[in-house]
């Protein structure tokens, strides 16, 4: 087995049979995870390749490139797979969470404002615990805002510091 190198992107193997780096997720596992956890259809990522840069940081790139590739960025950082539970990024949920059909928690405008300020809050939710797609209704649709960790009646905002916003108005 070879190792992860922190300064380069390696394309994820299609399946476990092609895996050369220990613990590196496969494309199949990533697609299955989005579908199982959030109901996002695998076809959503049909034109994307998945890449790892540093252990457990998965990126989605629309198109393909030689692997490995030494660049500063390749598509969007979409997922962390190094924890006990895989965790999508805020930006991935905003972009691909629009196709989610489960584990989506829709907040009202005030609770959504609390969430994007990065604050924890009590919520009523009788679904799964863990990382949820947190959304609000806006402009006639449900807009995914980011990721919340739901545990014991509390929603912990996972909006990263640099994305937290004190939003004006409704």
């Amino acid at each position, binding site marked *: 087995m070879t190792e992860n190198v922190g300064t380069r992107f390696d394309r994820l193997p299609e399946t476990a049979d092609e895996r050369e780096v220990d613990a590196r997720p496969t494309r199949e596992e990533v697609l299955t995870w989005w579908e199982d956890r959030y109901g996002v259809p695998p076809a959503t990522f049909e034109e994307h390749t998945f890449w790892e840069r540093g252990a457990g940081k998965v990126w989605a790139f629309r198109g393909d490139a030689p692997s490995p590739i030494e*660049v500063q*960025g390749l598509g*969007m950082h979409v997922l962390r797979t190094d924890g006990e539970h895989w965790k999508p990024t805020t930006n991935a949920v*905003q*972009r691909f969470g629009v196709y989610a059909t489960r584990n989506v928690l829709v907040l009202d405008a005030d609770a959504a404002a609390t969430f994007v300020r990065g604050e924890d809050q009590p919520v009523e939710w009788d679904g799964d615990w863990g990382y949820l797609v947190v959304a609000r209704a806006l*402009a*006639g649709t449900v807009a995914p805002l980011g990721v919340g960790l739901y545990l014991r009646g509390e929603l912990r905002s996972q909006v990263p510091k640099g994305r937290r916003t004190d939003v004006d108005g409704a």
Partner: protein
Amino acid sequence: MDPLARYEPLVDDYEAFRATCERPLPTVVRANGIKASVERATAALDEAGVGWRAREWNPDLLELDTDAPGNTWPYFLGWIHGQEEVSAIPPVVLDPKAGERVWDACAAPGSKTTQLAAMMDDRGLVVATDDNLGRLAPLRSNAERLGVTNLAVTHADARHFSLAPFDFEAFDAALVDAPCSGEGTVRKNPSALSGWSESFLDGIAGVQKGILRRAVQATRAGGTVVYSTCTFAPEENEAVLDYVLGEEDCRLVDLDVALESTPGVTEWNGRTFDPSVRKARRFWPHLNDAGGFFCAKLEVGG
């Protein structure tokens, strides 16, 4: 020192030019089609009670009745991005198509990069390069907030850019939004001219020439290279074009943007330039109540 006074011979209405440079800019954002339609973005602004007016020449550009577009829902969601009106000109001139490979040679902080990606429907490839490592972080975070995924970011001096990491030989198009003296940004930043000197112009013009040459070399025959700056100085604009026309296989072509502008100048401070630099356009602040800008379109292998 009054650097703008040197442009009196080039401006049609010098008083209006100077008066406009004293006034702050309107707040303009670009609706980001990768994450939401203009209709959805404006509906969200309506719900937030933020007034807006679309720009006629580019309906994706919205002037807002707020000084803090960053504190709105559509901004948090990446449906809009703060971008000065004239800064949206070069991608429109480059006119990329979905599936093409486009190089943004001086990309940070990524307003034009993300506009290119949106015009390409997030398909094909945008390679965004910058030589300032500290400015790559905002470039990446802007691109990610705007939902861009057809992007590769590289850290390099564009003059010495290498295609080695990639598996293709040339780009279909390139944008050189060159580092410049920034005279045209004086409305956004009144101190923009405080460090102005003719020797700075000479130094930066050398960099601009090197980057534009590399962009022409890295673009396939028949492809497009767009050169732009946010400055008035002919040393950084027509003189750079004149030099590259002489060194590389390319020619200037007409560009069509429905904003008021004047042709590139063929004479400056006793120097004369290739007559085709008239095809470049000067966007003076008072003509469109916007920032100052310069833009030229080149065809490679002319």
